[in-house]
């Protein structure tokens, strides 16, 4: 019995079957590196980083989950949604209500919140049956405002502007709190959902999504029930948002309506664009980029305020953040429209091909 021959990068395109084309790992080293990456992520990273770094890593993880969801909708299915922030809010509130009123443990409350959000997302995806392109974008914008209004004014369930405080999650009687334990909750969820998203692209459903993105009329002609698949895409995307929202609610201990505004939706679209449309790893890059940018700007403005040089000026965080954030989006679209995923691919292949770069 001999071992299978190791797969290396071939010096050309020698794929013989569709299965080879679909494979996630081109070489055995790719598989090895991703296993090593996971081990490092779970066993080394949380113990090397301080509480503040860990907090940022956790925030990136949560943002990545939601960004992957949005990328399934925008990048894979081609439906531009401006309501993702509101779906995150639905997930957060669903998680909070399920955890407090229904007393569900967190490992049930979080997926259940995802399912609730998926339903809501499908309801707001109904206009996609008749609309496409910009008209659909405007419909989702309306969805954002309507959900926001409901979250604020349905006081019987959401307690209005008061917010809901969540209990700490428990596993077999042991209370989970602190950044370290949340790190595991967040990143196990992220790993599972990333696995799901990467494999979704390889199923017939994923291929149907891509067909709808590329030409919905042709897709319909090929026998894909377009409306049903658009709804499914809205559902899956909102499920991701709901899970992210529910974890966020647990992590932040209390939820209020403020964060889930149009600004958040725009931030998520920015993540998807900056990361790379239709690329799962791109969503994570984008989430990391935007989160770190936010933190850097906050740090910078704090530093400028405390250094006293311009103490007389009324300088606060919001305008600079707004300015730099917008500039980042504009520059990325103008210079690298395929996003960080493309930058990463170029860097990697230039290493791979070194020193003969062509």
């Amino acid at each position: 019995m001999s071992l299978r021959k190791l797969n290396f990068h071939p010096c050309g395109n020698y794929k013989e079957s569709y299965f080879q084309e679909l494979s996630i790992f081109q070489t055995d080293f790719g598989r090895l590196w991703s296993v090593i990456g996971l081990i490092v992520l779970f066993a080394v990273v949380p113990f090397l980083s301080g509480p503040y770094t860990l907090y940022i890593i956790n925030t990136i993880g949560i943002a990545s989950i939601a960004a992957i969801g949005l990328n399934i909708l925008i990048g894979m299915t081609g439906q531009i949604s401006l309501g993702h922030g509101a779906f995150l809010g639905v997930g957060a509130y669903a998680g909070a209500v399920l955890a407090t009123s229904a007393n569900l443990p967190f490992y049930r409350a979080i997926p259940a919140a995802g399912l609730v959000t998926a339903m809501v997302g499908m309801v707001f995806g109904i206009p996609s049956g008749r609309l496409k392109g910009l008209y659909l974008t405007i419909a989702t914008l309306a969805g954002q405002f309507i959900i926001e209004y409901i979250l604020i004014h349905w006081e019987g369930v959401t307690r209005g502007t008061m917010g809901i405080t969540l209990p700490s999650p428990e596993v077999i009687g042991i209370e989970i709190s602190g950044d370290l334990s949340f790190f595991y909750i967040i990143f196990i969820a992220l790993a599972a959902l990333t696995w799901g998203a990467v494999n979704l692209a390889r199923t017939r459903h994923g291929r149907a999504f891509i067909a709808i993105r590329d030409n919905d009329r042709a897709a319909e002609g090929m026998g894909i029930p377009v409306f049903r698949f658009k709804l499914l895409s809205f559902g899956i995307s909102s499920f991701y948002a709901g899970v992210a929202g529910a974890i966020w609610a647990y992590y932040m201990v209390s939820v209020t309506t403020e964060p889930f505004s149009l600004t958040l939706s725009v931030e998520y679209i920015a993540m998807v664009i900056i990361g790379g449309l239709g690329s799962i790893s791109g969503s994570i890059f984008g989430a990391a980029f935007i989160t770190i940018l936010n933190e850097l700007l906050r740090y910078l403005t704090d530093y400028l305020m405390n250094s006293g040089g311009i103490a007389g000026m009324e300088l606060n965080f919001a305008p600079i953040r707004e300015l730099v954030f917008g500039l980042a989006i504009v520059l990325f679209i103008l210079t690298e429209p395929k996003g960080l995923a493309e930058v990463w691919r170029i860097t990697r292949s230039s290493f791979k091909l070194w020193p003969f770069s062509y």
Partner: protein
Amino acid sequence: MDFFLQLLVNGLSVGFLYGISAMGFVMIFKSSSVLNFAHGEILALGGFIFLALVVSAEVPVIPAFLLTLCASFALGFVIERLFLRPLIGEPLIEVVMLTVGLASVLKGFMLLVWGGNLHTYPDFLPGWLELNWHSIQVAPVYTASFLVGISFLVVFGLFFKYSSQGIYMRSVADNQTAALSLGVHVKKVFALSWAIAAMVAALSGIILGIMNGINVHELSSVGLKVFPVVILGGLDSIGGAIIGGLIIGLLETFTGGYVSTSLKDVVPYVALVFILLIKPYGLFGLVEIERV
């Protein structure tokens, strides 16, 4: 009854303003199919340029007004040249996101320069503009906005109907490829439509500023309220924008007056969803026919 009539008058005046704000938006969409999310910010910037000229530089009102319009015209031109032109032919979402990013940049800039507080213009409208009829009052700013708005509509109507540039713009809106092959300079038309749209936006920014005071957040949120208006009227119909504006204005004022003030802001969007479901291309919009 008086309450009803007063609401009617208010609704129509607010709606007329929405209509004028939406006009610039429709103009851009019609000629270059770009959904401009930065419209509210361009509108607010117009208001602030006027503020800077009138209050800080103490320019008399009428030259300041004309200067603001010129500055916004130039601004629209520059925005198209720097940001939109490289994206001709790129996917929809990139263009949309570019305007979103632009909105963010402009908003941040305005917040840095003027801060988030409420500013007001000095009172310069003559008193004879105030109309009284029985118990119904029409504030001078409403009359002024109506007069200015109507004159702009007439000027643009004539411009589109008779001037050669206007005819070029209409031809590009009608069929870009055909216009291109007949020798119309399409890029110039795009630039011109952005410039004119920014100018109209600045005009509505000034009027809204006189009415409610100038605040970055308030004025830029008008850019979002434009969406229900244009969807109702049809994304590519200028006349539809005015009528859509009137309907949305009335809807908003009556909901605020009779139902609840908090519902006022969300009602246009609820209406929007229903319009989209029932009549996706609006009242006067062009129905797109697609082929594979």
